[in-house]
């Protein structure tokens, strides 16, 4: 008996403070760490794609060397974007049923359409048009299984005449123009899922989709910086500093806008101080102190802003190696900070009682369907896929040169 009582005191009570409805005092929040990873991954996809469209649509030539890499990054992460959701289902083994019976009026089910559109109609198509010429070339020169892959990927079209290549480029250009709103849609949708929950003051907020998109762009560029530096390091190549500086510049401005919008959100909430503001304050001061103030604001925003901002001012005074390290560190910190931001959004909304007078907490499990082990595995998977994609589609020699068919041709045609 004594044992049981003390167990309970240890087990349930510290999880709850203040006035919490009995049915809210669950051991876990319903949306666990997997739901933190889901917006993180979709954000990386959308961000990496938007970074690639800087090359295609806005004609930023300095970024051409990372165009293909960022498109492949977007693809690798998009392929894993649904995994956290599917693993989170009560019956993950029946996940295909959800895709076979799409529902038009459920906001959750709309993700299926958004996802399918983005993967099939935008990303794969654009990649295919971009690589088609090379598929034809490689399928002729590569023997064995790998050659077979290229041959299948040509879809049997071997026409690489100037006329057809020009058509490819036009299509690519159209697709990346379609792709930008689609990328915004993909991630704006994720923000909408949270922002449309009116009863929850932490979530229900029209700025939510916008903050999600901006932080997605930031995290996507940071991921490209990270991948680019790691890739050149693995391949023992030198980093193209012009390209890296350009990425750092865009990263800085995107981060600046993101930080401003998020600050605006905080100021607005603070000024309006609507019902439930007191509990939000408790969250910021206590429950989310480390992940919000230190993780998201400190490590994820202020330090990178300072580092990247200093680089914008003093670019020519800082030696290349130092610059590279600083950009790499900012990228890594931003990646971490955006993950923390997703955590704060997803968990923050579940840490306080609907009475606004009590708070709960969450201790991550290690194993199991909702454990962080599975979450970490899902986070590793895109990198594994990306490695395969890079092996197949980014030949070493091409890496640092801009693509052979420069994008500016495309916008002229």
């Amino acid at each position, binding site marked *: *008996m*004594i044992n*049981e*009582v*003390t167990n*309970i*005191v240890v087990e349930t*009570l510290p999880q709850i403070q*203040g*006035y*919490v*409805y*009995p049915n809210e005092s669950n051991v876990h929040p319903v949306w666990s760490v997997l739901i933190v990873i889901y917006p993180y991954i979709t954000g990386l996809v959308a961000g990496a794609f938007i970074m690639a469209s800087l090359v295609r649509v806005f004609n930023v030539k300095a970024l051409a060397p990372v165009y293909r890499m960022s498109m492949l990054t977007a693809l690798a992460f998009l392929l894993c974007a649904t995994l956290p959701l599917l693993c989170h289902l009560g019956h993950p083994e029946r996940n*295909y*049923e959800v895709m*076979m*019976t799409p*529902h038009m009026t459920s906001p959750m089910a709309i993700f299926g359409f958004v996802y399918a559109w983005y993967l*099939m109609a935008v990303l794969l*198509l654009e990649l*295919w*048009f971009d690589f*088609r010429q090379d598929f034809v070339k490689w399928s002729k020169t590569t023997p064995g299984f790998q050659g077979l892959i290229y041959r299948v990927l040509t*879809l*049997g*079209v071997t*026409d690489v005449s100037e006329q*057809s290549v020009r*058509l*490819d480029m036009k*299509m690519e250009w159209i697709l990346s123009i379609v792709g930008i709103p689609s990328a915004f849609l993909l991630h704006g949708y994720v923000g909408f899922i949270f922002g449309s929950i009116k009863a929850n003051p932490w979530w229900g907020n029209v700025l939510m989709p916008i903050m999600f998109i901006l932080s997605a762009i930031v995290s996507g560029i940071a991921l490209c910086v990270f991948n680019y530096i790691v890739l050149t390091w693995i391949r023992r190549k030198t980093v193209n500093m012009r390209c890296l500086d350009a990425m750092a510049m865009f990263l800085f401005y995107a981060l600046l806008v993101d930080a401003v919008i998020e600050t605006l959100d905080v100021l607005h909430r603070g000024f309006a101080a609507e019902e439930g503001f007191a509990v939000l304050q408790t969250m910021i001061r206590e429950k989310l102190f480390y992940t919000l103030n230190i993780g998201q604001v400190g490590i994820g925003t202020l330090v990178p802003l300072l580092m990247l901002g200093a680089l914008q001012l003093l670019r020519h005074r800082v030696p290349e190696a130092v610059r590279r390290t600083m950009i790499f560190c900012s990228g890594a910190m931003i990646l971490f900070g955006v993950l923390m931001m997703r955590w704060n959004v997803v968990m923050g909304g579940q840490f306080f009682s609907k*009475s606004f*007078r*009590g708070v709960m907490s969450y201790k991550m499990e290690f194993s199991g369907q909702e454990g962080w082990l599975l979450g970490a595995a899902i986070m590793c998977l895109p990198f594994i896929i990306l490695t395969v994609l890079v092996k197949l589609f980014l030949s070493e020699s091409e890496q640092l040169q801009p693509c052979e068919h420069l994008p500016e041709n495309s916008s002229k045609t």
Partner: protein
Amino acid sequence: MLPFKLPPQILRLVLVAMAIVGSYFVARSFLVPPSFGQYGWYRGAALAEIASREPVFAGKQSCDECHSDILHKLAKDAHKTLSCEGCHGVSREHGNNPDILPVKSTGSHCIRCHEANLARPTWLKQIVVKDHYGPKCTECHLPHQPTKSP
């Protein structure tokens, strides 16, 4: 001859797209569970599946057969509204075979119900365990007759 000819790569893509959409519909005809949509946007058979599950709770009446004394005691005191299994855990197996003891044979987590919480109705007697007489509830309260002491 068509006046306008689709470029070969577009033609292939159209074919691939048609193949994908086609195979989706073929897959649908196999993979959508047969009873889907019978009553609504879900598997009709799920209802029967859930209904056919073995119950794990037995209910108060089934304990009467062997523990009628406790049932009487319980019915006369403050805990009369509680079910045995609310404190002892699922006991259907135990009722069928007394050698298998109930999940919590030695009683319950009293504080699950009695720890003070503002959200609880005020008619439910609540204590702050830290300030109460001691952690070992059954020393002073009979669980089946909570107003009496042993």
